[in-house]
Structure formats: structure tokens, C-alpha cells
């Protein structure tokens, strides 16, 4: 996606819809790219179900386990339907600088023979669909253990419609931010900062969990969290190397960077913990993995492997500082640190992308006449626009949902746990 040639090619394709024959001449299906992109698409689904669901689920208490799994599942279900009904069109239709319009609603005019670059457009659609799914799923970590299931479902539909689709359009669909030259190879801004900010707003609007800071809220299964983090890593190659939309050398670059930045962030989180408290924990290692994955996401096709290692080494201490010191300072209850890891990690990655893509640092370089300073400026601009857009609209959407359905379960239901109170079942029996 971040492959500008391809993005432009796509934009051109859209523009050329009225002049289809000319376009059809150029494009030819590549079986290899198709094979890779089908694999990438299923990998990103794998990230959400069961990857993210387990990563988050392991971190909550037993009584709320199923609620997390269910939230990830229902988001997957409804967002996919929304995507083919109007989401794809809003994000990737021609439209204006902010919204893509409804010309491709219900996937009108697309057949198995329609291409998007070198792959079937259906494959491009599903690949993008998995991104639209995982982004709202990431948010659930911030208000875990207290949100109503019905409210979550409604919020997710509204949120992708008014936050995700426009931002995706602005960055990838031919809209404002892409045109500014912001570099975001695989969705650091669109996915991670976006989810992180929406999560922070959610945590503030809903307020802390009952007993927060007093009761023991230790993860019910660190094992599942580790499995989830590992699956996220494995699936993330679809996310990052898949964002090249082809099986080529840049995809290979994105892949090696996704390996080594994550490895470095894992190690540096362990190192920081080791220094700060004498022991490296599994939760630390898992958090480091995710922080590294988040940070390399915007950068993975632009920086060199050594830049990726440094990026990974840097991001963990910063996120560590946020989830330990900053959060407890401000006292908000971002249950599973969506903001601290995805938001902060995404911001660090977005800005450092502007640094490490310098050829002198092993990167693939800047656009014609663009300096590092200018690139960093553009990166920050994209970050700020995302934060503001996402923060304001998410806040409004939470309030609307609160008025319609109520965001939060009552105290007794929260004490009993969401599994019983919201879903009428328990995660484990003997």
C-alpha cells in the first residue's frame, strides 16, 4: 500500500474506470503476487483471530475472558460485512480528499477478472478488509473488563465509518495525507496510532475498572498472552511484507525488518526490566514484541535492517516508560495499554521512519528534493492530524453510544464478570 507506485497505480486505475480498456492493457495478473497476497490476507485474519484475541484475553481476569474473545469476534464479523457493503468504497473509491464515496458500494462492478495492480481486486479488497477489522479490535484492550457488548458492537460500526475509512482514504486511498508525502508503509498511522488514540479516549470516557489499583488484576493466563503475541508476530509478516502487494525485494526488506526490529524490541524491553527491577518478565517480552512490531510497521519498506534494529531498541524503553510511569501518574485505566503500546509505539515508529529512511542510515531514501527535516515534519503532521481527527470523533461517538445504549455495565455485572453477565457462559469448567 505504501508502495507509492502501486498506490498511484491504483488511484490511476480508479480514475481510469471510465477509460477501462487503456488500463486493462497495462495490467496483467501475477500468480506469484496473488499467491503471496492471499497468504498475507489470511495471516492478517490470523493476527486478529485468534492472535489479538488471545494476547488480550490472557491479560484479563478469568471472569472476563470470553468477553474479550467475543468482542474481537463480533468486530471481525460486522466490520467485514460493513466493508463489502460500503467500507471499501468509502476508503478506496475515487471520491474527494477525505472520503471515497459510494461508487463501489456492494463491490459494484468487480468480478474475478478485475485487477488491482497485478492481483485480483478481490484479493486487494480482502487484504484491506483485514486491516479494517484489526484496527477497531485493537481498541477493545483499553476498555476491557467493563464495556457492554451491545455498545461495543455499535461503537465499532460507527468508528470504522467515521474514523477508520476516512483516515485510510486520506493516507492510502488517494486522499490528503498520501498527497503530502507522509510515509507509512503498512499502517502505523492508520492502524496503530488511530487505535491507540481511540483507546485512550475510551479509557477516559468509561473510567477505571472497579477496584483498579487496589484489587489484584493479574493476567489470568500469561501463556495465552505469549501465544497471542507470537501469533501476532507471525501474522504481521502478512501485514507488513504484504503491504508491498507483491512478492519482490521490497517485500523481502519489509520482512527482514519485521523480524529484526521485533527481536530488538523484545530484547530491549527485557533489558530495561532487568535493569529496573532485576527480572525480565514474559509480559515484558511479549510487550516488547508488540511494541517492535508496531514501530516497524510504518518504516518496514523504507529503512534498512540495521535501522530497524535501532528502531526496535529505541521503542521499548519509551513504551515501558509510558505503561509504567506515565499511566500510573495520570491514573487512567487503559486496561491492556492500547495507548501505551500501540499509540506510543506507532508515534515513535512514524517519526523515526522519517529519520531511518535516510540513505546514509541504510534506508531507501526520500522523495526528490525532500530533506530529512522536511520528511520528519510531514510525518509529525500526519501523526497530529490522525490524533486530532481520531480523538475528537471517537469522543463524540463514545458519547453518542453512551446515550443510546450506555457504555458500561452496572457494578454487579462488572463484579460478576462480563462472561456471565453479558454472554451467559463461563470460559472454563472442569
Amino acid at each position: 500500500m505504501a508502495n507509492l507506485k502501486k498506490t498511484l497505480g491504483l488511484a490511476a486505475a480508479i480514475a481510469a474506470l471510465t477509460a477501462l480498456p487503456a488500463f486493462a492493457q497495462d495490467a496483467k495478473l501475477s500468480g506469484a503476487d496473488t499467491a503471496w497476497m492471499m497468504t498475507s490476507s489470511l495471516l492478517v485474519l490470523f493476527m486478529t483471530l485468534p492472535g489479538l484475541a488471545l494476547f488480550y484475553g490472557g491479560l484479563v481476569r478469568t471472569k472476563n475472558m470470553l468477553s474479550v474473545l467475543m468482542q474481537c469476534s463480533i468486530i471481525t464479523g460486522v466490520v467485514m460485512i460493513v466493508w463489502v457493503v460500503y467500507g471499501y468504497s468509502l476508503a478506496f473509491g475515487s471520491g474527494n480528499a477525505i472520503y471515497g464515496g459510494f461508487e463501489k458500494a456492494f463491490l459494484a462492478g468487480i468480478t474475478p477478472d478485475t485487477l488491482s495492480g497485478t492481483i485480483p481486486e478481490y484479493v486487494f479488497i480482502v487484504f484491506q478488509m483485514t486491516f479494517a477489522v484489526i484496527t477497531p479490535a485493537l481498541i477493545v484492550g483499553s476498555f476491557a473488563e467493563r464495556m457492554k457488548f451491545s455498545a461495543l458492537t455499535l461503537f465499532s460500526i460507527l468508528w470504522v465509518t467515521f474514523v477508520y475509512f476516512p483516515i485510510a482514504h486520506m493516507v492510502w486511498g488517494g486522499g490528503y495525507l498520501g498527497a503530502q508525502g507522509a510515509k507509512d508503509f503498512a499502517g502505523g498511522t492508520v492502524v496503530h496510532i488511530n487505535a491507540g488514540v481511540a483507546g485512550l479516549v475510551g479509557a477516559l470516557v468509561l473510567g477505571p475498572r472497579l477496584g483498579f489499583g487496589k484489587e489484584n488484576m493479574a493476567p489470568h493466563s500469561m501463556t495465552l498472552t505469549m501465544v497471542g503475541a507470537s501469533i501476532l508476530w507471525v501474522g504481521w509478516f502478512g501485514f507488513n511484507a504484504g503491504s508491498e502487494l507483491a512478492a519482490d525485494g521490497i517485500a523481502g526488506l519489509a520482512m527482514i525488518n519485521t523480524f529484526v526490529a521485533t527481536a530488538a524490541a523484545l530484547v530491549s524491553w527485557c533489558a530495561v526490566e532487568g535493569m529496573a527491577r532485576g527480572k525480565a518478565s514474559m509480559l515484558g517480552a511479549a510487550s516488547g514484541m508488540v511494541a517492535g512490531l508496531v514501530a516497524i510497521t510504518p518504516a518496514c519498506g523504507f529503512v534498512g535492517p540495521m535501522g530497524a534494529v535501532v528502531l526496535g531498541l529505541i521503542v521499548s524503553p519509551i513504551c515501558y516508560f509510558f505503561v509504567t510511569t506515565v499511566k500510573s501518574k495520570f491514573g487512567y485505566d487503559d486496561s491492556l495499554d492500547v495507548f501505551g503500546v500501540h499509540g506510543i509505539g506507532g508515534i515513535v515508529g512514524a517519526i523515526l521512519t522519517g529519520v531511518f529512511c535516510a540513505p546514509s542510515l541504510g534506508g531507501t531514501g526520500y522523495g526528490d528534493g525532500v530533506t530529512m527535516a522536511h520528511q520528519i515534519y510531514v510525518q509529525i503532521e500526519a501523526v497530529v492530524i490522525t490524533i486530532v481527527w481520531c480523538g475528537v470523533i471517537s469522543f463524540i461517538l463514545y458519547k453518542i453510544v453512551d446515550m443510546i445504549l450506555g457504555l458500561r455495565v452496572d457494578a454487579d455485572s462488572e463484579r460478576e464478570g462480563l462472561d456471565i453477565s453479558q454472554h451467559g457462559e463461563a470460559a472454563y469448567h472442569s
Partner: protein
Amino acid sequence: MKLIIAAIKPFKLEEVREALTSIGVRGMMVTEIKGFGSQSGHTEIYRGAEYAVNFVPKVKLEIVVADGLADQVVDTIQKTAKTDKIGDGKIFVLDVAQAVRVRTGELNDDAL
């Protein structure tokens, strides 16, 4: 009859069970519990949130024996479960008014 309740260290369970069997104890109930006492727990930290785990894992034995055997049982548990380290556990003795074997309806000492 007496009910003897003992909290011991989990890895001593097998040894104690064998020692008791050898002095004629024929049954018991074993429960995994969390013990609180002078042996201190530990601290766990999860992303900056610190949890003091004040409890340490122990195993609780409940054994009903005829009055005559009670002292020997207490003694055997005490000797076998001992490691001379803090947290070795406690033994309590209570009076039992009646005992019944479910299968046969036998009563008191016959039920044990």
C-alpha cells in the same frame, strides 16, 4: 474420634501420605489452599502494576482417626513435614462427634 487438620508444604505431600499410611491411617481429604502466615509471599509486577501476593501455596490434609491414633498421627505429620524452614505448617486437632461410611452406613470407628 478426632479430626486432624494440617497445612503443609506441597512437595511434602507424598512423603507425609506414605508415613501416615504406614502407621495405619486409611483415608484422608487433600485440598490445595493458599496459606497466610509468617512465611512471606512475593511480589509480581505486571506492566507497572505491582501485586503483593501475600499467600503461599500449601496443601491441607483432613484426617479423621480414632482417638487412640490421634497423637501418633500428629506426631508423624510433624516429623515428616518438617524442613526446619519457616512456613512448614500447622496441625490442629478437633473432636468429631460421629462418622459414617456412605457405602455401608457403618458408624464411627468402623467407618474410618
